[in-house]
Structure formats: C-alpha cells, structure tokens
C-alpha cells in the first residue's frame, strides 16, 4: 500500500502547502489536505503533519486554539493508536498545547522574531524521524518563529535527556530554549515536535537539503512502499 499522509490546515497555517509538497516529493505517497473543522481523518493514514503558521492568529497562546479544534481530537486519538505525527513550528506549539508532548513554547528570550538558517545537532538518530542521520551530525535548517523558547521544569528536562527524547538541539543560542532544545519526541517515539522547518530544506535550490533525511527516515521506518 502506498504511503498515505495528511497535512492539517488551521486558519492561519501558512506552511501547509510546503509540507504537503515535501512529503509528496520525498515519499511519492498520497497527501490528503485536511481542514481543522473536520472531525474525522482520512482512513489508513501512515503519517500526520501539523504545519507551521500562526493558527488562529496566535490568540490566547500560540497553538492553544488549534489544539482544541475538532480535528485535533482525531489527531490525538491517532497518535495514541501509534500513527506517526510530526509538528513543525506552530505544529510543535499545537502538540504541546494538546498534551501530546511535554513542555511549552514561550516568547523568544530576545523578544524578537527569529528568521534564519540555524545549525542543529542530531542528538538521537535512533528515532523513527532521525534514523537516516548520524548521531551528532551537524545540519542546517531554517527557523522562523516568535515563540520558540522551549520550557519545561528541570525534572521533565532530565527525563527527556535520560530517555533520549531530545531529537535535535540548537548548536548555538537561538531563542532561549532550555538546554538548547529544538525538537522533542513523545515517550512512545511516534510523535516529534520541532521548531526548525525541515520541509524548507529538501533540495539544493532551497539552500540545502538537510531536511530530506527526516522524511526519508519516516518512510523507511514505517516500511511502507513509496
């Protein structure tokens, strides 16, 4: 069966098309575009992506309103069944607000919106999302966010570190994140949230292709024919 994915669009999402194109090009699979008001997801999904953007104008807190939208109940149920879920940027904020990932993303420590390529270190290459990278590999992926400052209490951070759930770390200070955390996994390893945008680095014309291996890892890890 061909790789089947869904990209969720909330009002204010703006990276949904880029995400869908990246998944299509790299996996050769089918990508369903799903609206936030849909209470049900397409059947037979291998992969769900929550894209970047400014869902609901970042009202209340970034990702807070989107996390309570009808489609997210279906996404949470799918994640709990083991479906692979990736949240990028606003998608990461939505995953923390929905309780699928620990911690919270706060206003950048320097107050300013940060929009640039950043160096990352692949901390864990044993995950479904990172198996095609090497441990400790230095990669470059762009960020574009105002609220990317990852916060969790020390006990939670220690647990994440101990369980290998920090997938990516910034190689230099970017936004004030605790322990320079750029991407975290859930305990089952089927949900990843990250502030950098791998879908914006999938071919040399975009300035690099370091994001490609993330999608290739998922495709290979799920063992679904492209």
């Amino acid at each position, binding site marked *: 069966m061909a790789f089947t994915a869904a990209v969720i669009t909330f009002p204010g999402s703006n990276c949904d098309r880029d995400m869908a194109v990246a998944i299509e090009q790299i996996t050769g699979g089918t990508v369903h575009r799903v609206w936030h008001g849909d209470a049900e997801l397409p059947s037979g999904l291998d992969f769900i992506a929550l894209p970047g953007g400014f869902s609901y104008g970042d009202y209340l807190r970034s990702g807070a309103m989107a996390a309570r939208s009808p489609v997210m109940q279906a996404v949470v149920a799918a994640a709990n069944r083991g479906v692979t879920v990736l949240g990028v940027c606003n998608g990461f904020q939505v995953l923390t607000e929905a309780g699928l990932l620990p911690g919270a993303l*706060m206003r950048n420590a320097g107050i300013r919106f940060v929009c640039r390529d950043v160096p990352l270190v692949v901390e864990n290459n044993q995950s479904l999302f990172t198996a095609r990278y090497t441990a400790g590999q230095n990669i470059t992926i762009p960020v574009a966010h105002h609220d990317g400052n990852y916060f969790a209490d020390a006990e939670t951070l220690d647990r994440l570190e101990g369980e290998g759930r920090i997938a990516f770390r910034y190689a230099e200070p970017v936004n004030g994140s605790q322990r320079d955390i750029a991407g975290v996994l859930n305990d089952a390893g089927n949900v990843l949230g990250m502030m950098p945008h791998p879908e914006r680095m999938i071919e040399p014309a975009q300035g690099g292709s370091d994001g490609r291996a993330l999608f290739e890892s998922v495709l290979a890890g799920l063992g679904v024919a492209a």
Partner: protein
Amino acid sequence: MKIRVHVSLKNGVLDPQGRAIHHALEGLGFQGVNDVRAGRLIEMDVADTTTDAALDEMCRKLLANQVIENFRIEKVA
C-alpha cells in the same frame, strides 16, 4: 455573573515580555522599578448558575497553560 481570570507566569519562568517592559520603563526615566512580570486578564460574563468547578475547568482546559502559568479566578459581581 462577571468573572475575571488572572493568568500569570509561574515563579522561575523567565518572562521576556516583562523584562522588555522593565527596560522600557527605565528608558522613560522611571526609577526604582525592581521587577516586571506581564500576565493576562480575561473577563467573562457567565450564567449565575455556573459552578466554581466549571470555572476551574475552563481555566485548566484552555485559559491557562499550567506548564508555565498560574491562574486566579475573581468573581466581580
């Protein structure tokens, strides 16, 4: 019934907005400002029959993110 929900950052959570406001106040020449923390005030008009438990649940489920924020419910009238 008028309700005010005061949402504030927990102690120990860095508040970049509060710090920027603090700097701006100093820039305006105000002396003796020791610290600034920025929070959020949410005003609601709810049915008189709304229970305390329901108000508490509203805060826990949506109005505050308890990873980083505390909340306080105030009944105004």
